[in-house]
């Protein structure tokens, strides 16, 4: 059981990292970013192409992957988000789902839908944590998640972060005091893409990645983590991610393996989500509206 707990924590770290990006966009723009996972996909495939395909150093792959993710985020912001700024949230949501599917299609076209393995940032054998063999890469992932969640929470207390919040609450009033909504929009989408890219780069060496791996396997739990955390709370997204990962894996162990309940992982998460929202509708760390 301990092994499932540990595996859940480290799996939850990826959900948390994606959830932090989702919350960042929602907090700043009130948009549900269904393209968040593919920022990670773009970063992972670009880094793989650079490191494995061309044999360039790892740092070049990381930089290239992050640059590709941020570029994708800025393109999405300019080509999709900004023209639809005044549209309904439903239209924006559908458009971002379209962005995710389009990006997956491009990756399939360029990279073929075959499984790949990214070399880890740090080599080395697994560390025994509660019976699970945890790789150094996973420890890095956990540390980065904690640092980024804290950094993002701090960011919204800075002048720049307050400008982002002001712009999200009343664009016209923010403009009056000299805050450019376009600059804010670029900043938010660039940061969200950067966070997604970091998630993709850190996760790709842990498992096997295929086109769409972030969206198809990570995005829904990440959204659940964001909701669980309160949707506007960055530390909440961090904690929500870890909670989702742990509950998924304990669900597999207890419900799936002991009680033979099908769909145990999803059932556990759904139960947790419903329970938290019934008791605390604003989420674990969300403020009451």
């Amino acid at each position, binding site marked *: 059981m301990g*092994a*499932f707990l540990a*595996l*859940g924590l480290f*799996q939850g770290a990826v959900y948390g990292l994606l959830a932090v990006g989702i919350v960042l966009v929602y907090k700043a723009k009130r948009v*549900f970013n269904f393209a968040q996972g593919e920022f990670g996909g773009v970063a992972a495939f670009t880094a793989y192409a650079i490191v494995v395909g061309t044999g360039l150093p790892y740092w070049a792959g990381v930089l290239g992957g992050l640059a590709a993710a941020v570029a994708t985020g800025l393109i999405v912001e300019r080509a999709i988000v900004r023209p639809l700024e005044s549209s309904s949230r439903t239209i924006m949501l559908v458009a971002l789902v379209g962005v995710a599917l389009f990006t997956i299609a491009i990756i*399939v076209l360029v990279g*073929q*839908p*075959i*499984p*790949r*393995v990214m*070399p880890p940032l740090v080599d080395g*054998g*697994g560390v*025994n944590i509660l*019976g*699970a*063999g945890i*790789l150094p890469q996973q420890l890095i992932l956990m540390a980065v998640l904690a640092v980024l969640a804290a950094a993002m929470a701090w960011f919204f207390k800075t002048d720049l972060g307050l400008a982002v919040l002001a712009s999200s609450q009343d664009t016209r009033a923010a403009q009056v005091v000299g805050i450019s909504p376009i600059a804010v929009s670029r900043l938010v989408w660039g940061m969200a893409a950067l966070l997604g890219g970091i998630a993709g780069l850190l996760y790709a060496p*842990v*498992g*096997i990645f*295929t086109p769409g791996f972030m969206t198809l*396997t990570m995005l*829904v*739990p990440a*959204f*659940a983590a964001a*909701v669980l955390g309160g*949707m506007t709370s960055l530390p909440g997204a961090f904690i929500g991610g870890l909670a989702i990962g742990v509950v*998924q*894996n304990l669900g*597999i*162990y207890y419900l*799936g*393996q002991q009680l*033979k309940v*099908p*769909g*145990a*992982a*999803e*059932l556990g*998460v*759904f139960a947790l*989500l*419903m329970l938290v*929202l019934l008791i605390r*509708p*604003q*989420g674990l760390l*969300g403020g009451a*509206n």
Partner: protein
Amino acid sequence: MRLRTTLALLAGALLVLPACGQFDGVHDDFLAQGGENPGLGGGDGTSADDASSGADGTDASGDGGGSGGDNTGDGGGGGGGGNDNGNAGNGDTTGVTADTITIGIHAPLTGAAPLKQASFETGKDLYWQYGNGGKPVVIHGRTVETVFADDQYRPSTARQVCQTMAEEQQAFALIGAGGTDQIQACAQYAASEDVPYLSTGVTETGMGSLDTYFAASMTYKQQTPMLTDYIKNELGVTDASKVAAVVTNTPNFDDAVEGFTGAFDGVDVFRPDKNERGSSAAGNLCTGTAKNYDVVFVLTSPTFYLEMAAASGCRPQFVGVGVSMGLDQVASTGCSAAGSTEGARFFNPTPAFADAGEYDPDFLAAVDAAGIEADDVTWMMWGQSKVLHQMLEKAGEALDRGAFMDAVAGQKFSTGVFPDLNYAGGPFGATQVSVLRNVCDGGGHYETDHAFVNGF
């Protein structure tokens, strides 16, 4: 608040929907079926030792030779009985013209177990275009054309593309290249429309009663008792507590589990859902870097297996049956994840691609003639095409779907690439497997440990 509630409900629905299973309605029709295919004719024939007769006749009089002849090179299987009236045609000549026969092939190019598109594009026509000493194969005056469709690793899509190939693209027969649920779905459609259907052996659940279905390799249920013998006698692990099975929780794998546990009582069986991560399953196999099990039988999607292997720091010995695990792409990916699959052994319809020249030199000659870069998918399709060639040859010149099925049922075929086949007892006619070993030296690939064995 309203927004948050809406979002919560949306997230909840998205979480629950995958748990419902993505393959709606595919299994339900099959579960209660099973049974044996009595065959459509023949059945009393005996194998002909002389495989060189070429079978140019237009009927099956019962003592014809195999299909070898000019095109297949290495002789065919024995002639079966056939019926006294020759092959009983039904007049359905869909896909057959005076000059050509059209064959439809489906396989997953996208989804959870994708195969390389380039391999299919080059491999689907290789045998038919170059299998006759570098020239096109001619069967009773006709050449073979192929159409291909991606089933996206989804049964509903498989059924749809099979229908399109059979009805709109006029495919005479259909071939399933991989994916249990997809093969089952397409076989069901094919049987409902009397379209001949050939695939590698997968589940037996609901397949035995399909009149138009023929498995070209051993089914999972047939292979798993052999696998237990392999574990005990070749790997030397006889203690059931040291053996685990990780098999995806789909009804189509139940027969494989029954076959395995029936022959190896007391092994631990884990049945992860399709949506679970392979890395979670590793929690069962290892405690840190210590092995909980020496041998792990895997029957999952390749990506699940690769994730599980990568996350299993204790490196247990993986073994398995089927087709997709035996692909070099899987070996290569597993090897690049810190050699996590090194030494894994999988039963396979064919010997390893690395040894193809040893088992069928015509394959390499055809590859040279075509000027393509071949791989194990190409090799697999070559073998399956060769089986179909022998079947078409035996069906005679007056080819229709009825004549084809009449000519195949109860008969024997031998290609030297796929296992020897004998459909006297029904559609599951193979009795041999090859054992491939994952070797990580040289980029990660499979090599042949045993070829065409029927016991350990």
